[in-house]
């Protein structure tokens, strides 16, 4: 066999091994493969996704972010309702409050009272003076003279008076409301901002789900690929070990036609393959550990994919269709849309600074106090008020104007960024689409190469049995079959991985967006 051919295989497997290492390292801070303390779990992809959505901590964090945004939105809506408050309280003072009326003098000036003269008739009833006297009622005329009465000016001193106002212990209850009737668009602005925040949080949650799905899909099939490559390496090693054993036996015990250099060449080849297999074994363990980590399982958990091979379904679609789907479902796009909505709200809120605010207010109260005079009268103990108020901005040092300018600038900035994102998404989809097309072609080529390599190995083996080819060709055919199988497995994985990445960009399962061939 050709040693160069063996080197090609080893380099190829090593490259794959390195690539598998990077694959395993993809999830943030994936743990180093360790000897698992817990028994490996054999799971399907659906099981892995289900467990991921249950256990991965990124998802609850995103869910709480949505809950926060929803609560903020409801807070914004609260401004449309009247604000009603009730207060009740009991209090006791160290002593009853009082009102002290200071001592004073009351001055009364001199005055003259004039009484004019006149006459009137007086009726003396019967028996007024005694029985029978007068016997009947007598009417008598009475005359009186006019006169003037004059008094002198006088001063009356009034002493200081201490008036108790209420009992020192009181119980009060009040209720009031404020209802903002007009705010110039402030509340609708806040509502829009909160709604935008909610939509952004929902888009972020969706992105989290898509990213988790992508990670799990790629790691799951990465683990399948790692296992296939490891198995392939083991098989190749087993074959070459037999060849080496035979070489060694013929070198040491044969007729001398196999010499030490033949044997050493084989040793180098087998040991190179053995080191590659060790790397592939490590990659398999690392891929399984990374998958478990991404699923939110403990660091020592190991997940073994139940799938035997990476699936492959050819596709037919066009980039334009995928890009338009991306504008519909891409979470980044949705976040920009949400951001624009929020910034529109910010503009409204800023503009509300130009307008007056009108509010209706009201209050009702009740006061319990054992005292009934002073201020603790019945009238004062119950009552209500109702009113309306307006706050009119007249000059604020151009604060409102500049707030509006800032908000409008933010909107304009985001719109420009939206244009960039639009192109970026289109480019991303296009690149992935091209990668997918290339992967499909590579897959087809790798499949043909693998089929040809297998056919070549079978034919070479048969030809070898009939003395038509040399041993070297048989072993080379075996190594190339292994190499082509590895390439084929990798292209299958590449196809699935690109498809998964495309799903993240499009924001939806790619398979739903592209027309699958039967």
């Amino acid at each position: 066999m050709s040693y160069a051919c063996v080197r090609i295989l080893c380099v190829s497997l090593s490259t794959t091994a390195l690539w598998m290492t990077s694959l395993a390292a993809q999830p943030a801070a994936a743990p180093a493969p360790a000897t698992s303390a817990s028994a490996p779990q054999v799971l399907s992809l659906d099981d892995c996704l289900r467990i991921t959505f249950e256990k991965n901590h990124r998802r609850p964090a995103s869910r709480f972010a949505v809950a926060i945004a929803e609560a903020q939105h409801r807070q914004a809506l609260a401004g449309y309702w009247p604000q009603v408050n009730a207060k009740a309280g009991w209090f006791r003072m160290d002593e009853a409050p009082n009102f002290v009326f200071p001592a004073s003098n009351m001055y009364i000036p001199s005055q003259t009272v004039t009484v004019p003269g006149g006459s009137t008739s007086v009726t003396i009833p019967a028996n007024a003076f005694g029985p029978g006297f007068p016997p009947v009622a007598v009417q008598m005329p009475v005359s009186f003279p006019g006169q003037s009465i004059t008094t002198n000016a006088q001063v009356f001193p009034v002493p200081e008076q201490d008036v108790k106002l209420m009992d020192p212990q009181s119980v009060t209850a009040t209720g009031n409301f404020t209802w903002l009737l007009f705010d110039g668009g402030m509340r609708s602005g806040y509502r829009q901002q909160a709604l935008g925040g909610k939509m952004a949080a929902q888009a972020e949650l969706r992105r989290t789900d898509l990213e988790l799905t992508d990670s799990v899909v790629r790691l799951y099939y990465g683990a399948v690929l790692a296992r296939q490559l490891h198995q392939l390496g083991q098989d190749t090693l087993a074959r070459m070990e037999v060849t080496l054993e035979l070489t060694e036996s013929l070198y040491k015990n044969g007729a001398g036609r196999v010499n030490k250099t033949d044997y050493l060449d084989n040793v180098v080849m087998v040991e190179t393959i053995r080191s590659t297999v060790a790397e592939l074994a490590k990659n398999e363990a690392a891929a399984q550990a990374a998958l478990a980590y991404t699923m939110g399982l403990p660091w020592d958990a190991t997940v073994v994919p139940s799938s035997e091979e990476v699936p492959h379904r050819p596709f037919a679609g066009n980039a334009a269709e995928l890009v338009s789907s991306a504008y519909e479902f891409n979470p980044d796009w949705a976040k920009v849309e949400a951001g624009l909505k929020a910034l529109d709200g910010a503009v409204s809120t800023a503009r509300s600074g130009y307008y007056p605010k009108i509010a209706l207010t009201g209050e009702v109260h009740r006061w319990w106090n054992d005292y009934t005079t002073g201020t603790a009268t019945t009238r004062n103990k119950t009552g209500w008020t109702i009113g309306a108020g307006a706050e009119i901005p007249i000059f604020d040092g151009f604060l409102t104007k500049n707030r509006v300018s800032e908000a409008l600038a933010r909107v304009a900035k985001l719109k420009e960024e939206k244009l960039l994102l639009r192109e970026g998404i289109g480019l991303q989809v296009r690149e992935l689409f091209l990668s997918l097309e290339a992967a499909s072609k590579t897959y087809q080529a790798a499949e043909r190469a693998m089929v040809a390599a297998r056919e070549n190995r079978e034919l070479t083996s048969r030809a070898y049995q009939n003395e038509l080819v040399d041993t070297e060709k048989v072993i080379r055919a075996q190594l190339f079959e292994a190499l082509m199988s590895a390439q084929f497995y990798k292209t299958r994985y590449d196809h699935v991985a690109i498809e998964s990445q495309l799903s993240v960009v499009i924001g939806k399962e790619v398979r739903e967006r592209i027309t699958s061939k039967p």
Partner: protein
Amino acid sequence: MSKPDYRTDSAGGWIERLSRRRAISLALGANPTFSGVLALSQDGVPVRLALSESVVGDVNLNDARAAMKVWISLITKELNVLIDPKLFSTTQEIYDRMHHGDLDAVALNILEYRQIADLLDSTQIVAAGGPAGLEQYLILVKKGGGFRQLSDLKGKRFCTLKSPRMCLAADWLATMLEEGHRGPADQFFSSMSVDAKFSRVVLPVFFGQSDACLTSKRGFETMCELNPQVARDLRVIASSPQMVLSFYIFRKNYQGLNRQKVIKAISGLRNTTAGQQLATLFQFDELTLRDAGCLTSALAILDAADRVRAQRGSAARKG
């Protein structure tokens, strides 16, 4: 047998230099040569298996033994069965050892089987399974050469493949010629040659350097697949029945767990990657358990050949 090739062009050249794989293939697999299959019995008594040097031919016995050692090692490691091959210089020696119960099994070809069949248990034969395991001989001529049947080859150049798989070729050809009353082969053809290299048997016919050849069907089909023009330009004018030519068989009255272990070990060898590699390198197909019925066609040819020889002997005595 081809000449040893002493090229040292690559790491793989050594096997090629090993007087071809024949030695190993004879020793271990499809060919009846050797193998030593020795199952470790429960009481530690091994199964003893015989191999005739006469079948190995001019293969270097040291190389054959070295290859055999690998075989034993693999069987022991993978299948918990030991191989203890014993090489014998003659079939008679095998017969004697078998007769005294010193051997438990033997890997042999149909010729040897026929000689010692009375000592063997033909109810269980381990041989290559499926159509690929059956050997068939063909006589090939070039299309357009005017050869339509065997009689057309009278006085023509004829080449035969020399291989353990061709052990019945001469008998089959003699039978065919005798059926047409065409006399012995060396008198029928103008020249007869043999070659161990398949291509050196078939390609001369293709290039017109020879008029006909006798070779194996499997080899011809493989060559046709490698070179489709060979299939287009060559034609089969005679073909033998399908035959089982080499196999493992046990001594009569040899029973016990060991027997089943050996059967299981030999027939299951290709279930492991290492076993597959060994089978590939040693050129044998998947082996399966069969009964004596599979030998009928080959034995029929041998019987017919015997009758031919007897008739010729009788005719010679009369003449």
